[in-house]
């Protein structure tokens, strides 16, 4: 377990010297800030009439998730692919480190980076709380944060797994992006068209519905938590297998 922590720490530090991390942070935080400001402004304009709905945090989380689908591949593409290209994977694979610890450490490092961004976004619910009386729904804020963390962890785990399969970062990026677009936007569509158990399956696979049906409404359901946990496990497992396969060829 300590190895996971050591690798995660190095990976986290590495984000703060790489331009990609700053670009991602800049784009995400700027977009969220603009969306937040527009929402707040709109609310202030209308609130004097006394008929406007109270502003909530859901647009912020929605935007964050949308940006996460597009930016996570950039955050995970180099995690293992670049180690393979630079030859440093040979160093890690001949150090007393288990393959799983390497993959999990890489994932955790990326997770810490996204959590850092999430901490910055705490400012929005805090500001919003000042404007609304008697305060915003704390429960929705908390379940939404939990949901976003689980979605981010799933994306990062799948991205890490894919990065382990490639030596080329660009190939890793586009494969990851394609998978996310599929799981986030496309896989839910057939559920609206067909009926029966097939529709159920597609609905179950849809990553969005597990967040928007429960977490974003302040509901916690075990099945949704399990869904994301199993995606995390799948990502880390396939990453470990991919690293092991590198040894055999």
């Amino acid at each position, binding site marked *: 377990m300590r*190895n996971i922590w050591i690798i995660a720490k*190095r990976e986290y530090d*590495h984000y703060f010297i*790489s331009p990609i991390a700053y670009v991602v942070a800049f784009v995400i935080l700027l977009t969220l800030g603009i969306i937040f400001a527009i929402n707040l402004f709109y609310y202030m304009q209308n609130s004097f009439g006394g008929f406007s709905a109270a502003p909530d945090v859901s647009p912020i989380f929605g935007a964050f998730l949308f940006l996460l689908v597009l930016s996570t591949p950039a955050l995970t593409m180099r995690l293992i692919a670049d180690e393979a290209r630079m030859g*440093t*994977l*040979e*160093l890690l694979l001949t*150090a*007393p480190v288990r393959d799983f610890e390497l993959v999990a450490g890489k994932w955790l490092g990326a997770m810490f980076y996204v959590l850092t961004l999430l901490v910055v976004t705490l400012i929005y619910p805090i500001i919003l709380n000042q404007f609304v009386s008697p305060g915003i729904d704390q429960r929705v804020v908390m379940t939404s944060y939990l949901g976003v963390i689980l979605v981010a962890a799933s994306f990062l785990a799948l991205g890490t797994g894919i990065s382990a399969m490639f030596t080329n970062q660009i190939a890793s990026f586009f494969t990851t992006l394609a998978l996310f677009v599929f799981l986030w936007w496309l896989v839910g569509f057939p559920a609206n068209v067909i009926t029966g158990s097939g529709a159920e399956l597609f609905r179950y696979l849809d990553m969005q519905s597990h967040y928007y049906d429960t977490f974003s409404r302040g509901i916690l359901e075990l099945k949704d938590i399990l869904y994301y946990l199993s995606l995390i496990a799948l990502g880390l497992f396939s990453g470990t297998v991919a690293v092991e396969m590198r040894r055999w060829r």
Partner: protein
Amino acid sequence: MIQVEGLTKDYGTRRALHSISFDANQGEIVGFLGPNGAGKTTTMRILTGYMPPTEGTAIVAGYDVLEESLEVRKRVGYLPETVPLYNDMTALDYLKFMADLRRLPNPKERAYETLEMVNLSDRANSYIGTFSKGMRQRVGLAQALLHRPEVLILDEPTIGLDPTQVVEIRSLIREIGKDRTVLFSTHILSEAQQICDRVLIINKGQIVAEDTPENLQSRVLGAERVILRVRGDADGLADTVKKVKGTRNVTAKSDESIEFEFSAGQDVRPQVAKAVVQAGYELLEMRTLGLSLEEIFLELTQNNTSNKGHGGKS
């Protein structure tokens, strides 16, 4: 320390190693010689636990590389051919990271001490990305030495270095090899001759010879070749030498020098010297031309397929 038995490695349908076997003991520096693609790196990668063998066993520092890979990796220091460095880290941070992964006590002090060993302590806080090739090689070596391993495996440690650096690294390897097992690969034969206690010559995935550099030389040689130089004209000198019993293949080399051979163990140099002086020549020089490892190497690797007569354990 290292015991290899029938090690075989297939890449797909291509067989890179054909059942090789060898040992290396503590305090021994073993040179692994062979042309590119002979199987040196493959063997080293198996011994360091990077990849599993297709067949055969390898015991390193008392543990099986396949069954107890983590134990082997704890006890082996490895410098791969492409030095694995993070350009975005300082030399000290890099070694500290590796020391952490290896669970060494006082990682920072250990990292610094190891940098001192490779003469880089003055650049401890510089980024590895700014380092010259020789410095990078030394950081890589420091990484391999960090945990003071029982077995050190170095894949072409002197490649791409300038002559001064080569000398430095070689003396460092000799120093380290006093109480550890060192296996290092090279295709520079004189290097093996200088550093190694024993040389393994590998070609096309097979060990074609295994011996001390000196024994290899005399085994391949069979005869010693001598160059003889006199002042002034060497006309008729060849005939004079030919008359001495035991000389062979006498050939004129230039106006003032000739070469001849004699069978190993039948040194005829005193008789030749006497005959030459008696014939009125002024003898300036007479020395044996040792067969270099280069020649031994070519002899062994080229005759490998048709004639295994020179081979030790092949």
